[in-house]
Every structure is written in C-alpha cells, then in structure tokens.
C-alpha cells in the first residue's frame, strides 16, 4: 500500500493518526488530506473520538485498597522508593529548613498569628533512651496478658503513684497530679511499659510496618493500638457530618515523590483514645484523597475532657473542661514533615466559660514504623501556649488507638 487513492485513504488516515504511517508517505498523505473534504471530515470525527477517550483515560487511578493489597501481599514497603529519591548532598538541616518554615507559615495563615513557642522548659531528646524504651515496649507486648479495658484508669493511677509524682512541680520528667477531685492523667516515659499492659492483643514486631495502615491490628508507635470490635459503618455515617475542607485546594508545588508520599500514607479511618496532659481525648480521623495534585484531606474530630491545663511554666491549673476539636487539612510539606491545623471549642466547667483552642499538629515520620509528633496549642481562656510532643521530655503521648 504505497499509493494513496480513494479506496485506501481511510486506512492511511488510521495509520497517520496512530503515528504508524511510513515517514516517506506522510507528506503525500498530508497533501491528500488538505484537498479531500471527505477525508477531512473523517479525520475530524476520529479526532473528536480520540479527545473524548483521552479525557476518560486521565480519570482512572488505581484504588488505594488495591495498591495496599498488592504491596501487603508482596511484603513490600510502599514508601521505600520515596526515601531513596531524597536529594543527595543536602544536610538534614538544609532539607528541614524549608519545610519547617513552610509549616510555620501554613500554621500562621490557617490559624492566625502565633506569637511564639514557649520552649523554655523543653529539653533535648534523648533518642537512644527513647529507642530503648520502644524496644522494651515492643517486647513487653509479646508477653503481656490481656487485661480488660475498664482496668486502664486504675493501672494509670497506680503508675502515677508508683513513680512518685510530685505536685505542682515543673520537673521535666515528672507527671503531675492534683490532690483534689480533679485528676490529671499524664504518663512519663518510665511508666510506658506498665500502661502498655492494657493491650487487648499482643503484637508481633515484624508486623508493625504491615499493620500500620491496615485496620484491625495492633501497632506500637509510642501509642498502642488495639483491634476494634465492630465494623466502621456506623462510625463513617456519623463522621460524614463532620467532613469539612473537601473543596479546599492547596498546592504547594509538590513534586512526584511528595505526591507519592501522600498517597502511600493514606489512612482511611483511625480513631483513638488518648491520654495526655490535657486529659483524655477520644478522636476520629478520616482521610479523603482527592486528586493527585492536591493534598489529601484529613477531617475528623476529637472529643476531649480533662483538667489541669498547664500554663507556660507548667504549673497545674485547677479547671475542668469538655470540648471538641476539628482537624482541618493535613499538609504534607515534604516527605519529612506534615502539619495539621486544628480548631476547637471547649467549655471550661470550673470557670463556666467557653474557650477556643487553636493548634497545629506537627508530625515528623522518622521511619516507616515510628512517628514523632508534636503539637502546639493556644488556649484562649488561659492565654497560654502548650506544646505536646514526643521529642520533648515534658510530655509523652501515650494512649490507645483504634484503627478501623
């Protein structure tokens, strides 16, 4: 088929459009096309069909659960390719500087002005000590028996007493307790193994990575997760009332690795019961991924109740509150740092006044199994900044989370 004629023009057109026409014939065909209205009409129709098809092609992205199933079946960590593409030659601080500045800017834009962060009482992290505690924590999980959930509070009280907690002390390694009827629940690092006794099921260390984003398993991550007893259908219906931020769009110019990181860290639902220095927090988080070019949205809520918020000097304050936070948008600045602004309201029962809470969660995943988290909060009633983070000795975030 070397000569173009009335009978084969259409076949030449197909080859031409598919880039399969011999280069020596292209010029001749284009001349024929320019002078043949019928062929032009056919070309136009096929082009319209192709454009419609191409529009459809862009929409088909593999579902996350399929990706998770594949990688889980093969025992592969999905983030491994991300870490391997980290720039070579930049120091850790060079890599962290821009994300930290970006995260601070994002926090300011989203939640209002932050005057500063009180780090007066922050001590440097002893990472070796933390790792040792985590290792002992994991090994204790393998051997600890199942204990009913209702014993948790008693166990924590026992812990606090056993560790000789002193009142009103701004000791960085101590927990605080009030002698009156309000009670502050805080863990310190040395009490972690005892609190961990309250796990429903033990966890195998080698399953940590696999279980991290898969429901119904236990994960140790400075917090303890235990299996849910019920499916999440009811919870999802409830949570849909709280979904916000779905139409928001943030584009910080993510590169491909960052987008991959977002997708690979997608967690559908997670809930938690967490004890920290603010009291007990029951939280639920739902992630929704929109398009590849946007951040994924984390929307959720937490209900918390407790007492003894601290002022900047960590003096114990006498107030009991109940409130809720709504998590806004999780902003992965890079594959090193993530920021989640949150806003909340609470009612202080002691002073009978509302308070508004603004904060931001700072998350620095250090490896696929462990995550360091930091949280900075401004309390409008007390006019204090509080920071909770796992890198500081001031507080330890220990709790029990349900993943479903």
């Amino acid at each position, binding site marked *: 088929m070397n000569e173009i004629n009335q009978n084969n023009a259409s076949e030449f057109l197909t080859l031409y459009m*598919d880039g399969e026409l011999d280069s020596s014939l292209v010029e001749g065909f284009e001349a024929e096309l320019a002078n043949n209205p019928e062929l032009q009409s056919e070309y136009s129709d096929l082009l319209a069909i192709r454009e419609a098809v191409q529009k459809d092609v862009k929409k088909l992205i*593999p579902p996350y659960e399929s990706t998770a199933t594949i990688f889980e079946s093969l025992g592969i960590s999905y983030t491994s390719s991300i870490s391997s593409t980290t720039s070579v030659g930049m120091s850790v601080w060079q890599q962290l500087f821009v994300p930290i500045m970006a995260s601070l800017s994002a926090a300011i834009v989203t939640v209002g002005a932050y005057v500063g962060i009180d780090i007066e009482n922050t001590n440097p992290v002893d990472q070796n000590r933390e790792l040792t505690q985590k290792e002992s924590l994991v090994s204790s999980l393998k051997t600890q028996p199942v204990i009913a959930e209702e014993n948790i509070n008693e166990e924590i009280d026992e812990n606090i007493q056993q560790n000789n907690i002193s009142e009103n002390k701004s000791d960085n390694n101590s927990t605080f307790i009030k002698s009156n009827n309000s009670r502050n629940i805080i863990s310190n690092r040395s009490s972690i193994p005892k609190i961990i006794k309250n796990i429903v099921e033990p966890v195998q260390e080698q399953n940590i990575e696999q279980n991290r984003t898969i429901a119904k398993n236990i994960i140790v991550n400075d917090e303890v997760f235990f299996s849910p007893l019920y499916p999440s259908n009811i919870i999802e219906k409830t949570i849909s009332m709280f979904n916000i931020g779905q139409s928001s769009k943030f584009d910080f110019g993510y590169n491909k690795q960052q987008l991959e990181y977002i997708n690979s860290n997608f967690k559908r639902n997670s809930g938690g019961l967490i004890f920290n220095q603010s009291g007990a927090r029951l939280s639920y988080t739902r992630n929704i991924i929109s398009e590849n070019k946007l951040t994924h949205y984390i929307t959720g809520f937490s209900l918390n109740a407790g007492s003894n918020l601290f002022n900047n000097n960590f003096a114990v304050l006498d107030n009991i509150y109940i409130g809720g936070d709504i998590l806004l948008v999780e902003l992965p600045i890079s594959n090193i740092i993530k920021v989640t602004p949150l806003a909340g309201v609470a009612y202080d029962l002691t002073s009978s006044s509302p308070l508004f809470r603004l904060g931001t969660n700072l998350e620095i995943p250090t490896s696929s199994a462990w995550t360091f988290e930091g949280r900075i909060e401004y309390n409008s009633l007390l006019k204090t900044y509080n920071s909770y983070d796992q890198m500081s000795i001031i507080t330890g975030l220990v709790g029990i989370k349900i993943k479903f």
Partner: protein
Amino acid sequence: MKTIEEYSDEELFYMLNQSKEQSENAFSELYRRHSPRVFAYCKRYLGNQEEAKDVFQETFIRFYKSADKNRVMTNVPAFLLRIARNICVNFLKQKKNTQGHVSYEDYMASQEEKKYSGDDELLNLINTALDTLPEKYKEMFILREYEGLSYSDIAEVTEENVSNVKIRIHRAKQKIREILEPYIKELDKF
C-alpha cells in the same frame, strides 16, 4: 548517582532480582509508572470495577513474581498488559462457565457502572459503541486509544501479527465512527 526515576523500565525490572531494598524500590517505581494504565485496561476490558481490581492486583503480583534474572525484558508495559490480558481472558472464561442467568438487577448495575456524567455523553456513546464490536476489535481499540500502545506492542500483548492489528484497529475505528457520526455532527453545530 541516579535517582530511581532515572532508571529505565528494563533496568528497574532487572533490579527486581537484586537486594531487598533495590527490589522494593524498583517495584514501587514500576508500579507508580504503569499501574494507572494497567488498571484502566482491566477496567475497560472487564467493564466492572470490582472484577478489575481483582485482576489488577493479580497482575502486579504475578509481575513481581515473574522477575527472573534469566528473562530478557525489552518492553515492560507490554509485558504487564499481556499478563493482565491473560488473566482477564481466563477470568471471563471462568465466569462464562460458572455463571448462568444474570439477574436484571446485576445487569442494570453493570450498565450503570459504565455510564458517565452528563458532560460525558460522547464517552457514554463510545462505550456503547465499543460494546457492539467483536471482542478482538474492541480490545485492539482499547489498547491503541486508551493505552496508547504502538501496533507492534499491541501485537506483542495480543500475540497477533502486526497486519491483523492494523486491520482490526482500522475497522474498529470505522465502526465506532459510523455509529457516532450523527452525534458528532450535532456537537460540531454548537
């Protein structure tokens, strides 16, 4: 030192047989590059999201396990699609053998799944037109227009010769055009 993205498909396929870390990185990168097209192919071939997911998952698991240091790999996308195609064909054969009557509800549900939103009426029509084609023509059209494969790649995936591929693609396009021509002309008026 190269980043993982700078490696070719064939180099990455070779790395699947190397150390655990290299193998994982290589597989993740290959997955990132080719999973959308494989999923799209499965979805179009089977017309059903749930079935497509199963086949899609199986495709990549088999792909990973097929990595053999003695295998000479020259075209990873075509290899992936060939695996997907074989699984799809077997899946449909099995389904045909085991499934008798399809209930009205299931049929209507499968038709609903193929529909697009209001703005994509042309796509709906293309989908409908594709369903009228013989299976081999439909497959060729999908591999060419949706997957963007060359004729030689299509020949490799379908295990046909290039001449047959040319003819079938041409006939598929002509048939679809014939069905959609009046509609496309209406669109042009606006």
